[in-house]
């Protein structure tokens, strides 16, 4: 008998993998249905940004929350995804004189984009693997500084790379029409929604597997993890690869969303800050934390952009972060987990008192 990945470690209750996948897809379909019913194009536009942050937060949490390695360079992985798309579309344009290029040019954007997302995931995943290999011997804050450095180095490279527009930026032509409610932005929304479902499924599977327990052991005490037989370096490399890959996938549709990509927007501070702040606010031990954190903070920012001011965004994130660090340092899910645990312990103590 060959034991499966989930069999050996799934101690948590909850629906099985198939049931959960069905549930997640149904929820996604319901959300799309709701937006189509409301029929306001701006809602797709705003929701896309929130969903993008959900993916970034869940991806960051695989390395930062599960393994305890804080990555300040999320923007770099997001930008790698975005620039994979720009490079690919430029390559197709350059090749337009040849027959192969003309054939490629005929591929509709709707088909091309999911493929670009997969390609971006692979590129960003490989960069994550490489970054992990170079930096994971550093622990704590030293690792974090190295990831920040990576982000700066990559941005400098892109600024000086003419093929993708350098500091001037690059245009990506998006189709005017698309046979979906919400048009092409509606399609981008659906793609990002599916990526959210995929990211949740990956994160949830990790949590319930031997891998997830290994990650948690590394986070709690790396030396004790090694002594307990956890192959720490290999596990951390798996985490950087998965985390980086998902961030890259989230960045791939961005040039089509924004139409014009420049280094300052692809490497924006808000990605790095939000990718950290959202899991911190929501809680870092399961996918629910970054998911909830991204929905709350992301929606808050979108609403604030429209109602108050677009420059207030990061200030709000900062204030909320300070609030949570003081009131619920383990985030929303951590707060309830601790509460449940304290209650169970108190009950056990009462039972013990009654017995003696």
């Amino acid at each position, binding site marked *: 008998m060959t034991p499966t990945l989930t069999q*050996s470690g799934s101690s948590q209750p909850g629906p099985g993998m198939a049931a959960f996948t069905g549930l997640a897809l149904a929820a996604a379909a319901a959300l799309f249905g709701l937006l189509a019913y409301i029929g306001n194009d701006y809602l797709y536009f705003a929701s896309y940004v929130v969903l993008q942050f959900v993916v970034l937060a869940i991806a960051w949490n695989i390395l930062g929350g599960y393994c305890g390695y804080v990555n300040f360079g999320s923007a770099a992985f997001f930008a790698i995804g975005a620039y994979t798309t720009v490079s690919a579309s430029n390559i197709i344009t350059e090749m337009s004189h040849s027959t192969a290029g003309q054939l490629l040019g005929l591929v509709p954007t709707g088909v091309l984009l999911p493929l670009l997302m997969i390609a971006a995931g692979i590129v960003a995943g490989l960069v994550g693997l490489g970054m992990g290999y170079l930096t994971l011997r550093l622990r704590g804050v030293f690792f974090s500084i190295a990831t920040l450095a990576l982000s700066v180095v990559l941005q400098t490279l892109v600024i000086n790379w003419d093929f993708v527009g350098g500091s001037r930026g690059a245009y990506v032509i998006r189709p005017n029409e698309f046979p979906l409610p919400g048009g092409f932005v509606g399609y981008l929304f659906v793609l990002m929604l599916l990526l959210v479902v995929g990211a949740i499924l990956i994160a949830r599977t990790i949590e319930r597997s031997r891998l997830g327990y290994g990650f948690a052991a590394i986070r709690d005490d790396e030396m004790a993890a*090694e002594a*307990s037989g956890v192959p*720490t370096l290999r596990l951390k490399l798996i985490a950087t690869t998965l985390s980086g890959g998902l961030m890259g996938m989230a960045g791939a549709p961005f040039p089509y969303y924004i139409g014009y990509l420049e280094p300052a927007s692809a490497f924006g501070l808000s990605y790095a800050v939000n990718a950290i702040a959202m899991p911190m606010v929501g809680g870092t031990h399961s996918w629910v934390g970054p998911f909830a954190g991204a929905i709350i903070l992301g929606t808050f920012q979108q609403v604030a952009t429209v109602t108050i001011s677009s420059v207030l965004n990061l200030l709000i994130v900062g204030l909320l972060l300070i609030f949570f660090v003081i009131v619920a340092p383990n985030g929303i899910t951590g707060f309830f987990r601790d509460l449940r645990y304290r209650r169970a312990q108190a009950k056990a103590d009462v039972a013990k008192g009654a017995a003696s």
Partner: protein
Amino acid sequence: MTGPLLRAANITKRFGGFTALNDVSLDVAPGERLGLIGPNGSGKSTLVNCLIGTLINDAGRVTFDGHVLDGLLPHKRAYLGLARSFQLPRPFGSMSVTDNMRIPLLYTAAVRAGHRRTEAEIRARADELLTLVGLAAKAHARPVDLTQVDMRKLELARAMAADPKLLIADEAMAGLSNAEVDDILKLLMTLNSRGITIILIEHIMKAVMSFSQRIVVLVSGAKIADGLPADVIRNDDVVRAYLGQ
């Protein structure tokens, strides 16, 4: 079985210009209870770290159960049957006591057995070991709510979960009361009677003397005595190292 289970030959470890271990050799026979003593800073923990793979010795060779350990990472050494408990308890803080046991059961024990246990088997084995050390009632507690002695017991139980051949107990009793020391000693004797070789590193002489079949003394990174407990404590060099001249 003949020959030592563990052989450390001519181990030298330097930190910059400081020589923490100087040409230390040590044999441990299968099933033996060995006491390792020495004043603070004599290199006991450095030796443990070199054996376990956390530090890499500059010279010398460690063989364990027929395998040369040089260059092997700590987890690979664990897979061969080498386990340790930490001087300062290092529990997995976010996990329950049972989940602390789960880590070695999912990793080392699975590799050593050649197959993974099912969830029910993991729970049964964790429960069995926690009952052995007397922590079964606290299986759902978090390490932060454990007392010092319970924390030491968890350290030992977690080390045992890896099904080791050799257990290195690094000051498993430091800071405990007399009764608690006896508690842990009894536990270590039980483990030894089940066939596990034990190296005990300890400052409490009463505990070391009653536990060990043989005692090795380290002073300033060098081995100055190796023999029966009664002989070792009469050794002039040992007395001088501990009490001064």
